[in-house]
């Protein structure tokens, strides 16, 4: 078969798929598993109810980045900055400890417009990832980070409230479309006020405490103000955009965008990732009477790595 014929078939298939998608979008009630899932809610809004997750490497680093040998690295045998090797804490994980490349989710040049002093903090954060990243301690990830962590979340969309429940740390937030008073204090997941602009759900989020945006040390302060926009691409994909403003840290507001994908498994459901229990050793291990990790110096964990190279035949 010639290339041109193949090409035409692809075009036709794509056109058919688009047409099918459009029809579905407008009229058809689809089903996933047991639940019926109309493209629009009873009050005519796009139907975002379901289980969602992003694809991509934003939680490793929201900025455009090349692949790295580890989330933390050390100088290799050669002194060049581009020839670093994994640092000891992630060394034993081999290829599973590396950071995949990504074009990032930051619009424009892929870079966050940090103030100079904030850029220095970001750099230092990255070098102290294991000590400083709130994710490793199972703390609430905040917004927008919860939206692109490698865990699913569920949207339960009603008329006056839209609930977002996250697998990670059992985190949750309510998007209020109705009138509510402000919370009395800062929050981990923010205070979300929503409104519809046509088919776009716009959510204004404030009342944060300082937090991280990813595992690379990108961060914000308690002055963070996020404006999110959820726009349907198809019934099973949402264009997620967020404008991020924090005059303490950035020189100007900046924007991220990525698609959110619907979990289409017929048995998809949110399972809890209750990591509080999993991090007890990480957080409190130094204060045990008999320590499980034998090398604590004060609050510093000293990790000795023993690794046996398996014989070739067992691989």
């Amino acid at each position, binding site marked *: 078969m010639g290339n041109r014929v193949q090409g035409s078939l692809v075009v036709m298939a794509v056109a058919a798929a688009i047409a099918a998608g459009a029809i579905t979008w407008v009229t058809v009630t689809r089903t996933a598993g*047991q639940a019926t899932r109309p493209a629009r809610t009873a009050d005519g809004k796009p139907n975002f109810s379901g289980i969602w997750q992003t694809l991509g490497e934003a939680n490793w680093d929201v900025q455009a980045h090349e692949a790295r040998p580890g989330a933390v690295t050390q100088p290799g045998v050669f002194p060049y900055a581009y020839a670093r090797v994994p640092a000891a804490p992630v060394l034993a994980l081999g290829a599973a400890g590396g950071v995949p490349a990504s074009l990032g989710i930051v619009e424009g040049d892929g870079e966050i417009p940090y103030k100079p002093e904030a850029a220095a903090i970001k750099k230092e954060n990255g070098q102290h990832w294991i000590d400083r990243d709130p994710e490793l301690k199972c703390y609430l990830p905040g917004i927008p980070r919860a939206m692109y962590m490698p865990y699913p979340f569920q949207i*339960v969309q009603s008329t006056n409230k839209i609930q977002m429940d996250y697998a990670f740390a059992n985190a*949750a937030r309510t998007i209020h479309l109705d009138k509510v008073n402000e919370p009395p204090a800062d929050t981990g997941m923010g205070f979300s006020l929503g409104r519809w602009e046509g088919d776009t759900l716009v959510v204004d989020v404030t009342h944060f405490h300082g937090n991280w945006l990813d595992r690379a040390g990108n961060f914000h302060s308690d002055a963070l103000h996020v404006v999110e926009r959820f726009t349907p691409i198809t019934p099973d994909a949402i264009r997620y955009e967020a404008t991020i403003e924090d005059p303490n840290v950035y020189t100007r507001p900046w924007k991220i965008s990525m698609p959110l994908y619907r979990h289409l498994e017929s048995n998809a459901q949110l399972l809890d990732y209750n990591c509080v229990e999993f991090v007890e050793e990480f957080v409190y291990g130094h204060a045990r009477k008999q320590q499980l990790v034998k090398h604590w110096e004060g609050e510093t964990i000293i990790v000795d790595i023993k690794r046996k190279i398996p014989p070739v035949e067992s691989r």
Partner: protein
Amino acid sequence: MNKRLLALLGVAAVVMAAVVFMNLEAKPSAGDTALKTAWGEPDLQGLWAQKYQIPLQRPARDAGKEVLTDAEVAQREADREKQAATAPKRGERIAPRGTLEDLTGAYDTTFEADPFENPRPIGHRTSLIADPPDGRIPRLTPEVQQRMREMREFQLALMQSVEACKKSQDIACFGVKPGPVSPRRAEPPPYYVAAQIMGDRVVNRADGPEDFGLSERCLSGQLPNIGGVHQIVQSPGAVSILYEGWQRVIPITTSPHVPSQIRQWRGDSRGHWEGNTLVVDVTNFSAKTDYQGSRENLHLIERFTRVDANTIEYVVTMEDATAWEKPWTVEVEMAAQDATANAIYDEPRCHDGNIALKNMLIGARMDDKAYAEGKGPDPATMCYLLCGTGNPEYAKSRMEGRGGGAAIDGTPASSSGRGQGSPGR
């Protein structure tokens, strides 16, 4: 710095809202009778909290009497007011400034809900338990009784060398026979420390996080949640419930539960509609949870019915043939709360601010060090529970106000029925 002080400073730093919701009932408004959602399903949405003060189990004084007369309710309201007049108020000092009792009490009266502040009206029913008819939790199976005895023996062994228990028999020391330091101090407990057997804690030891109660580890927030404040949001196909500090999503589905090897702290929920009632079947609990003696075999059948604009009837049946001789059922009236107040704002951040657990562990290590250097008492003689809480009346009210958990004699507790009953969460 004093270990307890360190611990208490930490505790104070944990944001655990002792917000009292009881007087936030929404005012019924004319026309607010639409009890269906826009898509035609029964509408359970809103912010809800238990309407009346009713004990989980029927107290002995009400034996044989399912409901109180209006006169009896009025009398009990009056009695409570009298009690409230003499009880310590929020933030009130209950012991001389600077004493250990002062510190302990300062936390309790500042951060814990005052049982006499904005109280719920006293209900006519004498127990939340509607079945069995005696209003009591059915007898525990011999296996669970044995487990509780073993845990209790372990607990007493660790308390027998405690100095404070030689002087008084307050909450923590109840039933303790003074003796030498037990070799069991070096042993793990016979079972996972899931239940709060006595007071706040089970084990008078702070060797690691596992010696602490689930609420101190920020692992509480369990089902069934009986009467606690919660926010319900619905969509076709799912019901989300946001409790005080944790959430769950109930899928509306006829599909079977997740495989039995998947265990969760809050189980696996499956909902369906029966007329106007949301029926939720919950299984697959973790062996690390404990509700009134039931662990991984707990099976809940919850029924949520909107009976009028301002009321949800919540009925939950507990089944576990390995824990109780028969199933039992609780019925609670939930009243709509003023949702604009946003009073639900109590997100799952207990762990984020849990300086208390860290400081209590560090404090215990400081005790170990002081003892090793001959500068302090043997930690085996020290009390890490609630010994010496100054005001016996206050101690008594704390014990009585505490829901859930098993009583010290191994029988299920009489309680106010606030879920697992962990005001310290």
